[in-house]
């Protein structure tokens, strides 16, 4: 028999192999390292506890990314001032990805610009450009529509057009959370 499919360790093993990607996603959402690791820990605990909810046939990474995003959104909703939470400190965001920021100036500038984007735009850009998900899969992860993913990716891409040097990407104040409720849940 296939042990990894029937044992509880299956989810744990797959999560371990996904950890670097999940941690990058958590950092993109949370905006600073402490919040990132807190979010990742909470989400991983929940995924391990609720591994039975994973349906075979669903790409595991898509499920795990969606769970992580759901936990981030849930934590935001519990906050006193959720909309402002995305307006993180750009310096902390850069610090969270300090290793990447040690790269060449263009990458530093790009990371600096990412820090200024709302978390939803950052996450759409990551899922499409960093993870290679289709718009449809990214929409399933973000619990929204593919059209919204395209719009967010377009805004993120537009923000990086014309980027010429590190100085333009200097980290500053981030952008607020665009919305607490995905399009599919909004009242018409």
């Amino acid at each position: 028999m296939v042990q990894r499919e029937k044992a509880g360790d299956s989810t744990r093993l797959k999560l371990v192999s996904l950890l670097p990607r999940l941690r990058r996603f958590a950092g993109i959402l949370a905006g600073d390292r402490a919040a990132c690791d807190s979010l990742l820990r909470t989400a991983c605990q929940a995924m391990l506890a609720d591994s039975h909810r994973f349906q075979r046939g669903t790409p595991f990474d898509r499920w795990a990314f969606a769970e992580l995003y759901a936990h981030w959104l849930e934590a935001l909703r519990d906050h006193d001032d959720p909309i402002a939470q995305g307006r993180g400190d750009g310096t902390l965001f850069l610090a969270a990805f300090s290793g990447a920021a040690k790269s060449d100036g263009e990458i530093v500038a790009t990371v600096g610009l990412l820090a200024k984007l709302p978390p939803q735009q950052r996450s759409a850009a990551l899922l499409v450009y960093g993870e290679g998900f289709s718009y449809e899969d990214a929409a399933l992860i973000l619990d929204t529509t593919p059209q919204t993913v395209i719009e967010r990716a377009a805004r993120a891409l537009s923000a990086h057009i014309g980027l010429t040097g590190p100085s333009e990407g200097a980290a500053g104040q981030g952008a607020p959370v665009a919305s607490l409720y995905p399009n599919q849940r909004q009242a018409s």
Partner: protein
Amino acid sequence: MTELSDELLVAYVDGQLARDQSKAVERVLEQDEVAAQRVEAMRAAHTRLEAAFDAMLADELAAMTGIADDPVPERRQSAFGLLRRGGAIAFIGGAVCLLMAGAVGGYALRAIPDPSGLTPQARVPVVTGASTARDWQDDVIITHTLFGRDTFSVGLESQANIDLVRFHLGNLVGAEIQIPDLGTRGLTFKRAQVLERQGEVIVQIAYLPLKGEPVALYTRWDEGADTPIALSRSDGMAAAQWRQENLTTLLVGDMPDAAMEKLAGYAREQIAANNSLSSELETPLSAAEARATAVDPMPAEIAGETVPDTDQPATLAGDQ
């Protein structure tokens, strides 16, 4: 003149439009210089974002494994050159998987690092002594269990030239590497990459069936006389090992032993006959195509003990 929205241009740049839509956009771009410049700018931004996200991931891997703390050996650098961009991540991922397998394999998968215990700058514990107690075949099989369809669902442009990939792999291993054509067994070549175990190069040549989990050949330099195929089973995986022209190959997959034996025999024949894939014969699927086929809606059912000898794709899957 037709005006193209940013969203449409982004979808075009991202390669997520249907072919006829892409052609329609290209026709407009031929006539609209402003839109064409916008597309070029978007492509440049796209490239910068990908590079930044790759750097972020490499940063995460370094934080969790400490790989970046070690000086990069020259051989690994050349592998990075070969598998740059998506390939680099695949390479690092493979290395991480092997390290993690080394870390946990010695305890029969019981001591897997707990993701929920992650702390800032936490490192996946690598028990260096554990992997030395086992042979490379065990490590490879444990590593193989970490690969799923999604691992190989993203096509790598850098691997479009299979001849070039074989050339570089051959340089790393020190012998000509064959990428056997297993298409008649329903297996599509997806990726060849280098793994390292205790400084030793192991080449992974991965294939995907239409349904089910990946199948891969793991090859390493091993001077000696040719040996017959020997079957084994570990961690739910069937494995077949043989030595051929100073290369020991381990074929690993989730399938019945009989199917593994037939597949190994066929692969060995293909290698002996020098029937390797080349750039003219096969190209890895594009990312979009691979994503479209990445979902396996059915549990891995047995395809049967027999593997068809026809050109029809087969399904290689679990045990009976």
